[in-house]
């Protein structure tokens, strides 16, 4: 993958790394103010000045460039940026680090200046029980300082944090720039350190050349050139190649990482550039996960540069595919899209989806779905549209839709206090199957559905990432219908083995309104139809229980075993539904006919294919079809009731 990243860097920089610093600076920052912390050497005093102010959308790139605002160093690496949002770094390590050996050059003018600042403004503080003293900004120089390091703190890190917080409050008071919206920059005698040519050279060197301190002559693994190369990949953010565990090195010797990966200066800088550019331009979200949509060019470099503008369109294209609302919007801009699709149709790019999680400094790859041809994306778009057309036919409302983003909401992932969610592989595996066209096991999908049904019925939302909805019964109905659309989508993509579907049905004239069309559209077989009809009747009974009998709950729903319906349970439920129909016969309409038909259909050979989880799914699908239609069919129900009574009278 390193070569894919380097290729993107090469294209976006036009193969010239001269503007490396430009790429290191973000396009915008959400912060609205830049405040200078000015060290006056002559007066030995500190001042806080508001240097720049951005609009409502934050600071512009131009302002950020002026003060060289770049991301902080990751992990335990020493901090050196004089412009940062983290005041803790500025009151402790940043300036003392810059004057250490190995940072600014010995003869640097800036180094001498910063040495004076360190000597006049910083004091050495030691942690209790600690050996090494650390430089801290002398709090006595700050007017009205409420914080002091007079005695050794127990935990220096916490003490610095508290000190920075107090100082941020003081700065906010003096400059009226709220701490959360402020970027701080260090100035000496009114001049920003970031603007000093020595610092600019140093920043460039850190990002492009420092890795080559231990460089040697070899073959670049990325471009194949024989030149000076490095095996130091520690500054790379997207980690595919680890160099901290000796078991991954040839002959267990850490000097041998170069035998797998080396990079020349040009490729190294392209990767640094690409990582920033990808983060800003090719980053999106799919189903609650952060994802980079990384295209790989089949063509040669010249062709790739020609296709650069389409590269920028890739994320937009993907954002349209994953969401049905944006897909509809995209259809309106047909001409623009057609041109783009024309390029994609030529298989100019292969798509790679890198799902990741960022936690402080760590970058963890959750999944990489590689080598997705554009034709697959077009196929997914087409099938999403077809599924939505099916939804419209069945008159399922607009807010109960299926698209790629919805998958995340259809599979309950357990919550973890620290990590946010667990079991993410369940969802990512589904995405991998959809993008790569791998087959899926339907039994597994029914199992996921069952967990969702349990979550809604038992209202165990606390265990999962879901918030409790206002009406769990309605949420169950909506999600069940979404699941039906999801299965339909997978069937259309031909990645799920379908059971035999029922082509004609001599009894379909006796189905409830709308249900016949749903069975045909969703390709239900006999047993599935039978269970859905049972579910539909349960819906009728539940409605009578809550509306006509004024019961607070719907006791009939408790007869369903949400953990899985065994064969015996289903038969018992048929019998119980039959009893309830007799109990509520005044209100129940054609329910008896539907139930008899359901039982007849269920008792065909097709029921043997059903698992206990699948039975829950089809039962609740029928229930949802009824619940969805409760309001619109109220009049019809009345008519049916009337009809039913008339029939009974005639019989009598």
């Amino acid at each position, binding site marked *: 993958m390193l070569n894919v990243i380097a290729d993107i860097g090469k294209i976006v920089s036009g193969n010239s790394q001269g503007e490396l610093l430009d790429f290191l600076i973000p396009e915008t920052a959400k912060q609205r103010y830049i405040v200078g912390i000015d060290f006056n050497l002559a007066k030995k005093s500190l001042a806080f000045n508001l240097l720049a102010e951005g609009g409502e959308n934050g600071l512009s790139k131009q302002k950020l460039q002026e003060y060289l605002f770049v991301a902080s160093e990751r992990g335990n690496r020493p901090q050196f940026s004089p412009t940062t949002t983290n005041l803790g770094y500025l009151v402790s390590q940043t300036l003392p680090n810059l004057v250490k050996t190995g940072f600014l050059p010995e003869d640097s003018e800036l180094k001498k200046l910063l040495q004076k600042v360190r000597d006049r403004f910083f004091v050495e503080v030691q942690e209790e029980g600690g050996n090494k003293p650390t430089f801290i900004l002398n709090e006595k120089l700050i007017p009205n300082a409420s914080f002091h390091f007079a005695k050794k703190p127990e935990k220096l890190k916490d003490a610095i944090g508290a000190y920075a917080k107090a100082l941020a409050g003081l700065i906010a008071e003096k400059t009226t720039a709220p701490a959360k919206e402020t970027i701080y920059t260090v100035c000496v005698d009114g001049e920003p350190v970031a603007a000093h040519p020595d610092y600019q050279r140093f920043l460039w060197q850190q990002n492009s050349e420092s890795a080559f301190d231990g460089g040697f002559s070899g073959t670049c693994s990325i471009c194949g050139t024989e030149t000076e190369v490095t095996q130091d990949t520690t500054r790379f953010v997207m980690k*595919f190649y*680890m160099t901290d565990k000796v078991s991954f090195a040839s002959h267990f010797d850490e000097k041998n990482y170069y035998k797998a990966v080396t990079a020349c200066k040009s490729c190294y800088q392209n990767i640094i550039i690409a990582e920033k550019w990808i983060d800003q331009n090719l980053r999106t979200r799919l189903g609650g996960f952060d994802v980079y949509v990384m295209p*790989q060019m089949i*063509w*040669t470099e*010249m062709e790739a540069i020609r296709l650069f503008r389409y590269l920028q369109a890739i994320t937009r294209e993907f954002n349209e595919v994953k969401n049905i609302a944006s897909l509809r919007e995209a259809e309106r801009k047909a001409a623009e899209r057609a041109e783009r699709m024309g390029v994609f149709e030529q298989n100019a790019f*292969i798509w790679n989806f890198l799902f990741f999680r960022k936690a402080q400094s760590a970058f963890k790859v959750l999944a990489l779905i*590689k080598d997705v*041809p554009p034709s697959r994306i077009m196929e997914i778009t087409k099938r999403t549209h077809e599924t939505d057309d099916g939804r419209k036919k069945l008159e399922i409302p607009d807010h109960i839709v299926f698209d790629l983003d919805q998958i995340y909401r259809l599979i309950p992932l357990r919550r973890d206090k620290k990590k946010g969610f667990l079991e993410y592989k369940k969802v990512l595996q589904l995405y991998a199957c959809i993008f790569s066209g791998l087959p899926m096991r339907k039994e597994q999908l029914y199992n996921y559905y069952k967990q969702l049904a349990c979550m809604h019925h038992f209202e165990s939302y606390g265990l999962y990432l879901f918030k409790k909805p206002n009406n769990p019964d309605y949420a169950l109905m909506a999600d069940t219908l979404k699941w039906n659309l999801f299965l339909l989508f997978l069937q259309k993509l031909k990645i799920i083995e379908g059971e035999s579907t029922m082509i004609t049905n001599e009894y379909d004239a006796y189905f409830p309104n709308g249900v016949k069309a749903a069975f045909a559209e969703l390709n239900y077989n006999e047993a599935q139809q039978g269970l859905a009809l049972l579910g539909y009747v349960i819906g009728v009974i539940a409605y009578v229980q809550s509306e006509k009998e004024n019961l607070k709950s719907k006791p009939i729903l408790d007869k369903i075993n949400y953990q899985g319906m065994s064969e015996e349970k289903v038969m018992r439920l048929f019998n119980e539904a039959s009893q309830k129909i007799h109990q509520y016969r005044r209100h129940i309409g054609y329910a008896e006919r539907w139930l008899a038909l359901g039982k007849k259909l269920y008792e065909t050979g097709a029921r043997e294919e059903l698992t206990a989880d699948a039975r829950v799914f089809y039962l609740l699908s029928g229930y949802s079809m009824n619940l969805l239609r409760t309001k619109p069919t109220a009049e019809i129900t009345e008519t049916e009731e009337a009809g039913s009574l008339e029939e009974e009278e005639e019989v009598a």
Partner: protein
Amino acid sequence: MNSHFLAFDWKGFMAHFRQFDANSSALSYSFPPPTVVAGMLAGVLGIEKDEYYERFNRSNLQIAVQIVTPPRKLVQTLNYIFAKSANDLNMSGDNLHTQIPAELLVAPTFPQAPLHYRIFVKTAEAKLAGELEEALRQPKFRYLPYLGSAPFTSWIEWLGVPETIQQLASTEPAIVDTVAPLAALELRSLRMEALDGILPAFFREHVRRDFLPGREPGEVIDVVWERNRGRIKAQFKEPVYRWQLNQQTFHVVFM
């Protein structure tokens, strides 16, 4: 022609050909790259590790790979020993592991059918060609072949030496059956039109061509392969060979 040609089928149920630049997630190539095939052939002949790089370099041994069954990729997480230093390798410390997702290759119809690669070899050394033919035809292996990683045992089916071999004229577009190095293609000559009514789906991989003595890293190349028909139509700068072998015709370009 002073070159010697031979071909064989390489089959097995699972494979893993780790991409050289990905070890924190062990991604796999879809086919055995030239270094893997060379290593397997060296093993078949009983040549020890790290002792064949000079003899098997590109000027003496060229390899082409046809992907007969495009593989399906599965991801399984493996437990590796967590070792920051060589001392940790004996697990005497905290007995920690580091988990690495690894891509495994199987046939689309796994486990009914195996993965299937067809390997074409061209060598300038008559002795090497003879040794390989003797070992592969019998078969008589010194070390058993495996598909990229030791757990994935495999077998070889000898195809033979070509009845006729012909080098195609480079002025005409050709349709090759093997994975093709990108550098072998004329600029913008890769054809996107349907072959036998099927639209192509091209993929690009970045592989190491060979190792230098002392297992020093050698040349890296980009290669292209096609999934739907397994054939690539383009104008080629490098020689394309037409093989007649067991009443079949193959068009081969070496990596």
